[in-house]
């Protein structure tokens, strides 16, 4: 038995990333084609929206059919295709590898996007969950830069998101929407999607500006100052927004144009992951680790520690702001209460669950916590017992998180796992 498992593991270890993406695409295409009839045949009313969690929790009698559905639609097709196409996908991956890196990466991302798009195409709910998960990845990653790579403890990310969300929303609502407070639209809506990136970047810069206000007083020394100042900052931003009449205070700002579609959110997430990964792998970014592990030694080795910390903090705030802008345009309604302590707990949970000092960790953390939150929705209040419990377990058994301290090396990730000549 053990031997069989080992053999399976060995043969799957030869599947390149391209192979997995391709197989996942096949699986979701299959769901598109035969998902509905299969679900009916298994006694489910419709395709389980989120891996059948909701169905299982609402009606335990349906657990076997939901699991069978998952096996038949996702696990089996993915596994079989991945295994069967090993030599084909390896050959393809090897050929792709000879192109410039940009092309290779773009093709992999296209596969990934196609898979996500097709999976989400089943229902609007899936689209929404997917968008929010992608945004969660951005926020988690940007917080990881501060709490993981730099080893400080910042609590201001909901504040940065709020600044980004309101900054971008004021820009788009003010310019493109006929609206009571800001007056008629200045610009034709046709220009909108082109200026949307400008709105997001503006939101990001507003957040960075806020971050500067936190950074200047708190980076003079190390210690708990940042945690306290940033927590205060978050509350200040929240009450500021509640009292600003031109963003309609606690009633919230609505009517954002519907520009944050799935490709846009996906693209910004990719951009965020790419630039953060670039940053943390450069010597300038590695200086963050040096400052975290020993600031005195970093200083003695010519590292300008104060500048390093401030730059990283502003950079993180920028991406939190962009994520906030996207968030506002996905929900098309924001109010100050959204960006409170609950949001902070969520983001912190994602960072510490997934793993400090690692891009993989942020992705794993953001995806698993977001999905868990959605999946456990039927349990209502018990959701907030189960998720923290999980977090405590992770902290006990893996104090730095699930995949901490792992570098994302794109070249290693994409390379073929087998020599092209060698047959299976």
């Amino acid at each position, binding site marked *: 038995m053990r031997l069989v498992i080992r053999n399976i593991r060995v043969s799957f270890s030869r599947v390149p990333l391209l192979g997995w993406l391709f197989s996942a695409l096949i699986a979701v295409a299959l769901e598109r084609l035969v998902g509905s009839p299969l679900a009916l045949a298994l006694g489910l009313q419709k395709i389980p929206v989120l891996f059948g969690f909701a169905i299982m929790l609402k009606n335990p009698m349906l657990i076997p059919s939901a699991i069978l559905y998952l096996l038949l639609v996702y696990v089996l097709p993915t596994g079989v295709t991945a295994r069967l196409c090993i030599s084909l996908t390896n050959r393809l991956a090897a050929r792709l590898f000879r192109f410039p890196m940009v092309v290779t990466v773009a093709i992999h991302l296209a596969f990934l996007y196609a898979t996500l798009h097709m999976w989400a195409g089943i229902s609007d709910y899936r689209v929404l969950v997917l968008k929010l998960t992608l945004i969660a990845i951005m926020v988690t990653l940007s917080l990881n830069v501060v709490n993981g790579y730099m080893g400080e403890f910042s609590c201001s990310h909901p504040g940065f998101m709020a600044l980004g969300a309101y900054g971008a929303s004021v820009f788009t609502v003010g310019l493109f929407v006929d609206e009571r407070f800001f007056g008629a639209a200045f610009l034709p809506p046709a220009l909108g999607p082109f200026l949307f990136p400008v709105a997001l970047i503006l939101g990001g810069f507003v957040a960075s500006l806020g971050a500067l206000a936190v950074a200047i007083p708190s980076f003079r020394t190390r210690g708990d100052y940042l945690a306290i100042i940033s927590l205060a900052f978050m509350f200040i931003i929240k009450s500021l927004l509640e009292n600003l009449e031109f963003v309609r205070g606690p009633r919230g700002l609505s009517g954002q144009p519907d520009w944050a579609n799935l490709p846009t959110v996906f693209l910004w997430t990719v951009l965020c992951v790419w*630039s953060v990964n*670039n*940053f943390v792998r*450069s*010597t*300038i*970014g*590695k*200086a963050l*680790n*040096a400052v*975290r*592990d*020993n600031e*005195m*030694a*970093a*200083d*003695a*080795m*010519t*590292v*300008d*520690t104060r500048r390093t910390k401030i*730059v990283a903090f502003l*950079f993180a705030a920028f991406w939190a702001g962009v994520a906030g802008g996207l968030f506002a345009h996905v929900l098309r309604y924001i109010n100050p209460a959204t960006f409170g302590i609950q949001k902070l707990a969520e983001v912190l949970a994602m960072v510490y669950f997934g793993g400090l*000092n690692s891009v993989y960790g942020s992705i794993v953390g953001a995806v698993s916590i977001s999905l868990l939150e959605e999946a456990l929705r039927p349990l209502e209040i018990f959701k907030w017992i189960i998720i923290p419990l999980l977090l405590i377990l992770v902290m006990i058994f893996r104090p730095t998180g699930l995949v901490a*301290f792992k570098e994302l090396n794109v070249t290693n990730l994409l390379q073929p796992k087998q020599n092209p000549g060698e047959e299976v």
Partner: protein
Amino acid sequence: MPFLRIHKMSHDFGGLRAVQNYDLEIGFGQVRGLIGPNGAGKTTIFNLITGIYKPTEGEILLDGRKINGLQPHQIASMGVSRTFQNLLLWRHMTVLEHVKMAHYSKIRYGLFGAFFGTTKRHREEAEVEEKAYKLLEMMGIRHLSDQVVLNLPYGAQRRVEMARALATEPRILLLDEPTAGMNPEELVQIMEIIRRAHEELGLAILLIEHRMKVVMELCEIIQTLDFGEVIAEGTPEEIQNNPRVIDAYLGKERAI
């Protein structure tokens, strides 16, 4: 011609005078020793030179330019590098990353390059990496370059620290007890490395050390410190026979 000159430097910790009227002149390629009992103020002098503490009185001149009051990283980029008594390494980073990090102040690709991975950045990082490998080769730890320092034996960690200090391309190297806790074999190797750093790179070296064998062998001139004051300065022979030094530090029974 001395390029590092310290003139009447004093430092107080609250009411305690830790360093009193300390003078030093050190020229290119000179090796100086600093000895004295524990708590005499040796490490404090290093911390004052490298900018971790600001001297209460006196001045420190590098190439005739006053450097007290500058930030530690500024002083370090002007060519003053050091190792620490109790090994301050970055525990989650690899050996190669340590040495690359010491090139921080020479990186020219800027934040744009860091965020967007420009070709300039890749070229510069590759150059730095090549230099780092060369240095690791010289220190005999190239085969460890991918290891996280936490997993290395003590002697290897000492070498990493030394490699890192040399990677800043200093003109003067301040070594704070480089042989502490080493076995005799490692001791010979580290002395060889110090000698090579001095001869091949032409560095000036200021050495704090408790093992008299090392100090006597490496240093041209030795200062002895007691209660923050220099009580004797001279060649190894003069120091060994100086009654005040024997009294305060070496002990009457057995000089050396």
